[in-house]
Structures are given as structure tokens and as C-alpha cells.
């Protein structure tokens, strides 16, 4: 039988605010345990939550960017369960009336067709603390620094049909939240985490199969592998005549498998109800308008414009457009040098390699966009060759100087004086009579050898195309 996997993702994006969602405690990562948890985050009696305006604003921005409805009125609810890293015994979340409803996202699966995936909803909630199970004489250590950190839980429609599509969705969302500057996307620090709902059904059937939920996937690779494993496991169970049990599973990357989570509670019953401590959230119309006005050109639109206006290949355009700082940098380089494709190539290859080597973000590049544009302008106007430009770039990187200064100081200008080049061509021909004879006997490949000799004599400063032309003319006489 042919099986069709059905996958929906719930992604928790940590919102980039200075303070917590319901308290004025800081949200800094990596602080000493329990030094970022106020009495509100600790759930002391008598305290009251007050909603952070920035958390609402970032959720609104996300809603506008995915073409969703920003709910005029939404409600906070208590999700009740007991766990030591949840001090109040409930998590404040949104249940029946979330702040963002609907919308969609375009995904680009590797080797597949791009398509849109529906988003069901996105709601605001607080994060829980962290349990540390090692090293405390048989006890569990609790760090509540993360408790109360604002999260946006983004729930997709069950519209993905392979692990590859699920990963493409997660990547597209990761690109978007960073682009909107609503989340730093740091997966190692847990700022962007994913739960996956997976089921399979006979191909062509409309009803869903029984699903399992895989919790806390914090890398693209794990999401793909965990979902792939789970799809295969469910198919094996069904083909062996068994039934899939609805349960929560954890992915073990070391053994590359999912296992049921051991929980005492048979069925989760969160007993949601509206939080009496929080009044309904009415998003101010002015906030929605301000966010709408400030919404940047989005990655998909920017990519399309790079292809359309600059004649870039879609893959190159995507690499440039999907990171906001890179896209801004690229457009500045293109403007200064006047050659958009040359600029694309340099930003994607030379600059990317140099940044990668030093582990730097483009925003911290030692060579500014203006300066890189200045260098590329010298390639475009024929002052230097692309090869020499790479040497100049290395010097700009370490010295922090402008291209023109280095070109002049090192005497790197390309030799374009035909007379001087012709003299060199004569020299090279005179010095290599054997090769000349072979060339004229039909070994055309030797032209490259002669070009190399001339380039060597000029320390790479000749224009290779011009040398090529002069040599050909002289040798074919």
C-alpha cells in the first residue's frame, strides 16, 4: 500500500524583548541560575502579571507578515499542569482566542516545488523554567531564569507530506522571524524550538491517521531525521497489522529513533480557563497601523526583485535576500559599484567565505559595503582584474583601507597599454620556440600556456582577455 505522511509543526519562537512577558525581569541568556526570575516569574502569592507591550507588538508584526488576521480582541488562558519548572502550576497561554489567526508561508523544499503552507494560528505565552537532572545528589535542580520569557507559538496546518517539506517550512519560518527581528533564531539557546505532529494514512484517503507528537526538536537536522524515523515506524506498525498509539515521543539523536515519553498522567487534561488575572487583550489600532507602515520588504518579495531587477539566479538571490543584513549590504555594494551581478558574486562567495572563516556576521564585516563597492567598481572599469581584486580584498580585510589606496600603493593597476603588452608577447614567443612550433602544428591548447607566461611576466596585472587576443593574433600570423 502507498502511504501518505501528514505533518503539522508547532514552533516556539522566543520574542526578542528586554523584559519578560508578564514581569519587569530581564531576559538575558546564560545568566547565573535564578538571577533573572522575579517574584512574578517565581509565582509568589499575591503577585499580578502585567502584559509587555513589545511582546504584543512583535506578535502583531508576525501576523501582518504572514497575511494573517490580527485579532482585535484575544484572551489569555491558564494551561494547568504540575511540573517543578512551572512554579505557578499553570502556564499563561492563549487558547480559544489567539492574537494571530490564519496566514501562510511559502516553502522551498530541497529538490521540490515551492508551495504555500497554511498557518492555523499564533499565540502569546510564557516559557517555563529549566530542569537539570544531573549532579545534584539524586535531586533535580531548577533554574527559573527562563520562566516568563515571551514566546510566540506558531501552529501550522497539517499540510506537509514529507520530512523534507517539514524542514523547509521550519527554515522558511526561521528566515522570516529573524528577518522581522522578532526572534534571534538561536536554536542552541532554545530561542527557536519545534514540536512535530506526525501521522500517516493510505494515499488518497481524506481522514487523518492517529498522530504522535515529537517534542523539543532543536535543530533542522533532528527535525528531518526524527520525522523520517517516525513516518517509517508508523508505516511498519500499520503494515504489521498494529495500530498507532496517540502519544508524545522524544527523539534520541544518538540512536536516531523516537521513544514514547514516560509520563505518569495517562491523558493530558490541561483544564484551560480564562486567566482571571489578565483582562482581554485589545490590540490598539494605532499599533497595528504603525507595524503595517514599518513592515519591511519581505524576504520572498526581495528575492523576486533581485531576480527581476538585477538578473540574478534564483538560488543566488535567495542566499542574498533571506538574511536582512546581507540583503542590505548587498544592495549597498551593487549601488556603489554599478554591477549587480558582480556584487552578488562577491558577496555570496568572497565575502561569505571571509566572514565564515572568522565567524563574523555581515553586520560586523571589516570591509564595509561602500568599500567593497569601491573595489568592485575598479573591476568594472577595468582598472584591475578579478584575480588582483582578490588580493586587494585580503589587504582591505586586514588593514581596513580603501581599495584605491591599496591599488596605487602596490602598483596593481592593470596594464592596458597595448604596446607594452605586445613587447611582452614578443618576448614570450621568442623564449619558447618549441611550444610555438607545436602550437602552429595544431596543438591549440598551448595558447593557455602562452597566456600564463605573459600573465606571470606582468605579475597578473595584464588583462587576460587582451593578452589572449594579442597572442592569438601574433601566433596565427
Amino acid at each position, binding site marked *: 500500500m502507498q502511504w501518505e505522511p501528514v505533518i503539522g509543526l508547532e514552533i516556539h519562537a522566543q520574542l526578542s*524583548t*528586554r*523584559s519578560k512577558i508578564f*514581569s*519587569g*525581569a*530581564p531576559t538575558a541568556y546564560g545568566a*547565573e*541560575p*535564578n*538571577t*533573572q*526570575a*522575579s*517574584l*512574578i516569574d*517565581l509565582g*509568589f502569592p499575591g503577585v499580578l502579571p*502585567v*502584559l*509587555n*507591550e*513589545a*511582546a*504584543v507588538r512583535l506578535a502583531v508584526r508576525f501576523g501582518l507578515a504572514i497575511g494573517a488576521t490580527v485579532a482585535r*480582541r484575544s*484572551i*489569555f488562558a491558564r494551561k*494547568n499542569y*504540575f*511540573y*517543578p519548572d512551572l512554579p505557578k502550576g499553570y502556564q499563561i497561554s492563549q487558547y480559544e*482566542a489567539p492574537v494571530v489567526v490564519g496566514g501562510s508561508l511559502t516553502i522551498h523544499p530541497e529538490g521540490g516545488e515551492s508551495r504555500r503552507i497554511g498557518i492555523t494560528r499564533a499565540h502569546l505565552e510564557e516559557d517555563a523554567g529549566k*530542569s*537539570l*537532572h544531573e549532579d*545534584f545528589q*539524586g*535531586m*533535580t*535542580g*531548577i*533554574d*527559573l531564569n527562563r520562566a516568563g520569557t515571551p514566546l510566540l507559538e506558531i501552529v501550522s496546518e497539517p499540510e506537509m507530506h514529507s520530512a523534507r517539506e517539514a524542514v523547509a517550512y521550519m527554515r522558511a519560518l526561521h528566515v522570516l522571524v529573524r528577518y522581522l527581528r522578532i526572534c534571534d533564531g538561536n536554536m542552541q539557546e532554545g530561542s527557536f524550538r519545534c514540536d512535530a505532529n506526525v501521522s500517516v494514512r493510505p494515499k488518497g484517503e481524506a481522514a487523518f491517521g492517529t498522530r504522535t507528537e515529537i517534542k523539543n526538536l532543536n535543530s533542522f537536522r533532528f527535525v528531518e531525521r526524527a520525522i523520517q524515523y517516525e513516518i517509517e515506524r508508523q508505516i511498519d506498525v500499520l503494515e504489521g497489522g498494529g495500530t498507532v498509539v496517540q502519544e508524545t515521543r*522524544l527523539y534520541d539523536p544518538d540512536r536516531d529513533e523516537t521513544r514514547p*515519553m*514516560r*509520563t505518569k*498522567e495517562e491523558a493530558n*487534561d490541561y*483544564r484551560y480557563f*480564562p486567566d*482571571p488575572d*489578565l*483582562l*482581554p*487583550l*485589545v490590540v490598539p489600532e494605532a499599533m497595528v497601523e504603525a507595524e503595517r507602515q514599518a513592515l519591511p520588504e519581505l524576504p520572498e518579495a526581495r528575492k523576486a526583485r533581485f531576480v527581476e531587477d538585477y538578473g540574478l539566479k534564483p538560488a543566488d538571490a535567495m542566499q542574498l535576500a533571506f538574511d536582512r543584513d546581507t540583503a542590505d549590504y548587498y544592495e549597498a555594494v551593487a549601488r556603489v559599484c554599478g554591477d549587480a551581478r558582480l556584487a552578488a558574486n562577491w558577496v555570496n562567495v568572497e565575502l561569505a567565505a571571509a566572514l565564515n572563516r572568522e565567524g563574523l556576521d555581515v553586520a560586523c564585516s571589516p570591509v564595509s559595503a561602500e568599500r567593497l563597492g569601491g573595489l568592485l567598481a575598479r573591476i568594472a572599469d577595468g582598472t584591475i582584474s578579478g584575480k588582483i581584486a582578490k588580493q586587494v580584498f585580503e589587504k582591505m580585510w586586514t588593514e581596513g583601507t580603501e581599495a584605491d589606496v591599496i591599488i596605487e600603493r602596490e602598483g596593481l593597476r592593470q596594464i592596458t597599454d597595448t604596446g607594452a603588452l605586445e613587447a611582452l608577447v614578443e618576448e614570450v614567443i621568442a623564449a619558447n620556440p618549441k611550444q610555438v612550433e607545436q602550437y602552429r602544428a595544431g596543438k591549440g591548447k598551448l595558447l593557455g600556456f602562452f597566456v600564463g607566461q605573459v600573465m606571470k611576466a606582468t605579475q597578473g596585472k595584464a588583462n587576460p582577455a587582451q593578452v589572449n587576443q594579442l597572442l592569438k593574433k601574433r601566433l596565427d600570423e
Partner: protein
Amino acid sequence: MSLSDEQVSAIAELARLSVPRDALRGLAQELSAILDFVAQMNAVDTSGVEPMAHPQDVPQRLRPDEVTETIDRARYQAVAPAVSHGLYLVPRVIE
């Protein structure tokens, strides 16, 4: 509406309350009475009335995104039964 002893047990378990077996019947009756009271209100036709999440018809006030709290960990942890290296210690929980 009448709750069974099993339902009361399940509710107690969810709330982490320890209820002696011989108290279940009495609790079931009391809780059932509360549900009957709610059922009376449920009988009123409220179609066309927007559900209320809060008795006050006031929107939530928003707070500027500023760090305003100073954290006095030692004082907050003074009431904890066990702490170590700044962490609260609890009986071991394993997932």
C-alpha cells in the same frame, strides 16, 4: 448532573490532592450540586451574547518593555526547602 467516584478521583489526581476513599462520595455529591447550579445558568438562552472572559469590560493595560525588577535571589530562596549553586532542588524528576 452527578459525578462518579472515579471522576472525583481523576480530578483530585490532576489537582495533586490526596482524597481518602471514604471522602469520595461526599465530595462527589457536593461537586455535583455545584454543577447543577451551573446547569441552571446554562439553561438560559445566551445565543447572540458575546462570551465574557472577565467580569470587567476593560482591556488589558500594557507595560513598556523595560527591566524594572531587581532580583534578590538569596531572599527569594530563603523559603525554599533546598537550594544548591543557586538552583532550587526538588525530588528527582525524569522524563
